[in-house]
């Protein structure tokens, strides 16, 4: 009963301060709005991501062949490859005679990408010798990526042909290629059916989440973890203002005082979760999925982890200032590693992110948003629960070792 008296008083104290209320309830809503709008380009609405057509300059020196002038690489079907509808939809090609002109066009922004094909390319391939193309990227990373992928696909096929030439000899290789083409086999150079990229979906229905959903989830987790900062400040302030001394002299056990304060901060955090989930649903139309019970469970686990972080750091830190700095640093690092600010395509960071509370909570909530079944979501919730158990154990050890008194 006294525990709830302390918890209720804690809740009242926190919600009385205007700055705290703004930070707890208004700031997350504003951040979700800003991030959801500003970074919406990094997300799709469930359809395929549109990549704009790239203007590519091909530098191919003209050479005299038996049939007069002919294009380099013709023997490997480069022109057919580039003219195929799938490719021409993504790349608009133009031939230029010199590398300098191509570079100038890239600098001036008249082209997005350039490819320099050496004059003896075909001969070297046919002779089984090393041959290289020079790919010169332009200013748009997305278009560079698209053009590189296309030309890489073409060169992979050239490599395959060269391997066949080396192994079987030029004549046998040409026959083998012809047989493949007559069979309509996939993978022939220039075949319009060639496809090296498959578009996959996050779930069976092909749905994905919007930027608002992503940031609503990541900000919910980050702000719930930030409640550990309030808890840490509250635990320290009780010592600084000497009210802990008075409380310790009253007929209340130290554990009741401690748990009361943690319960009060947890209640505020839970209230914050309700406001964020409700607010983003009503104002931004965020769909949090159909399993409200699981969403509540995830919030409870994140709040538990948050409170345990506050306990461990506050009790083990030498001063309140150090504790606050450590809490903030830990939360920011965990949010960054888990992709909470922006999804990160770097594998090392993703690996490190798997050791954070945010990762498992975020993945669980995103799966709820995608309408996954409880079994799938529970895999992530279980890992989140494991993180909480570890933090709980560390929290109990810290309390037993240090205690909570003046």
């Amino acid at each position, binding site marked *: 009963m006294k525990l709830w008296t302390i918890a209720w008083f804690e809740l009242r104290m926190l919600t009385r301060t205007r700055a705290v209320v703004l930070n707890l309830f208004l700031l997350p809503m504003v951040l979700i709005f800003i991030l959801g709008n500003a970074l919406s380009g990094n997300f799709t609405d469930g359809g395929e991501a549109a990549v704009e057509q790239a203007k590519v300059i091909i530098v191919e020196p003209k050479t005299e062949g038996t049939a007069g002038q002919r294009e380099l690489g013709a023997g490997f079907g480069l022109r057919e490859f580039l003219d195929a509808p799938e490719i021409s939809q993504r790349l608009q090609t133009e031939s230029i005679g010199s590398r300098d002109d191509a570079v100038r066009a890239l600098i001036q922004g008249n082209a997005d990408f350039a490819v320099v094909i050496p004059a003896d390319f075909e001969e070297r391939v046919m002779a089984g010798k090393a041959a290289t193309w020079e790919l010169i990227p332009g200013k748009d990373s997305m278009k560079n990526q698209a053009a590189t992928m296309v030309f890489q696909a073409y060169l992979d096929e050239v490599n395959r042909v060269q391997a066949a030439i080396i192994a079987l000899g030029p004549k046998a290789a040409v026959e083998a290629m012809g047989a493949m083409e007559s069979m309509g086999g996939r993978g022939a150079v220039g075949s319009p059916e060639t496809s090296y990229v498959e578009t996959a979906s996050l779930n069976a229905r092909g749905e994905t989440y919007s930027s608002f959903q992503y940031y609503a989830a990541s900000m919910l987790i980050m702000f719930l973890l930030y409640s550990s900062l309030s808890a840490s400040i509250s635990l320290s302030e009780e010592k600084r203002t000497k009210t802990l001394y008075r409380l310790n*002299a009253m007929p209340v056990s130290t554990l009741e005082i401690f748990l009361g304060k943690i319960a009060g901060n947890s209640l505020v955090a839970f209230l914050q979760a309700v406001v964020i989930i409700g607010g983003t649903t009503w104002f931004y139309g965020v769909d949090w999925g159909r399993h409200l019970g699981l969403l509540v469970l995830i919030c409870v686990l994140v709040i538990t982890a948050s409170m345990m972080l506050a306990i461990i750091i506050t009790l083990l830190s030498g001063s309140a200032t150090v504790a606050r700095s450590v809490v903030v640093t830990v939360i920011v690092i965990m949010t960054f590693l888990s992709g909470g600010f922006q999804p990160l395509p770097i594998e090392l960071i993703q690996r490190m992110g798997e050791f954070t509370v945010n990762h498992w909570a975020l993945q669980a909530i995103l799966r709820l948003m995608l309408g996954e079944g409880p079994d799938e979501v529970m895999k992530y919730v279980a890992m989140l629960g494991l993180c909480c158990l570890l933090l709980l154990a560390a929290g109990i050890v810290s309390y037993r070792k240090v205690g909570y*008194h003046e």
Partner: protein
Amino acid sequence: MSFVVVNNAVKRYGDKLSVDHLSLAIEAGEIFGLLGPNGAGKSTTINMIVGLLSMDQGSITVDGIDIKERPLEVKRRIGLVPQDLALYENMPAADNVAFFGRLYGLRGGELKERVKEALRFVGLEERAKHRPDTFSGGMKRRLNIACSIVHRPKLIIMDEPTVGIDPQSRNHILESVRELNRMGSTVIYTSHYMEEVASLCDRVAIVDQGHVIACGTEQELRERVAGEEKIVMAASGIGEAVLAELKQHPRITRIKETGNGLELYTPSSQNELQDILYICAKHDAVIHSVVCEQPTLETLFLNLTGRTLRD
């Protein structure tokens, strides 16, 4: 049996003995003063009575209950007024008092009534809805007391409650202590202000270096130093010859040199004053002022320890 019994209490901090086999017996309904310089062990003793510190040795009972065996029962009977302000500055005064009242088990109408009563008692009834961060230092001290008496404790412990406040608030607090005592509470009052303790307390224990060096009523303690009065003399030109002759005087017990003169201790200042003035004049010392002081608790402390309370 005494209401509070401290029996042979010992508290060590590493090698330092903070409380050294200290014993006290405080009767129900009295105002008991703990007098001693800073670091004498007063606060440590109080913390052990309240159960905030464990003893290394000895025992303490309050109202017949052993603090080690039933600490919460003992705490329920005590209202501690801490030396430092212990208030929630951003919560209204009434909410502060009500919160502590709830933790003592008060609820509903009874709690409301007790909160009003406590605030009225310290003269803050009209400021009930104001936050302590808008209060003066004295008002905060009074609210600090209100938070400790809301549950009408049998034993009120006040640890230096008048430190750093204006005379008006100080008088208000001292009068409050008397009133609380008249209402039936036993009071333990610690201070290093001798005059405060002397005027307020029924009995006084003088504590130094962790143990009680004297205990009794003010009258009893004065009688222990009745044979010694102090003459404070502001003078210039006091040389070795003056000091040597004064030291040879058979009825001057001690001489202490101060920055601007001398302090002399004698069984009767009036009898010896003429001799002292004569010796000074003989050696051409110039006397600016002379004050004769009756023995006080300060004198007793000095007598017992060779130091003043504020040393």
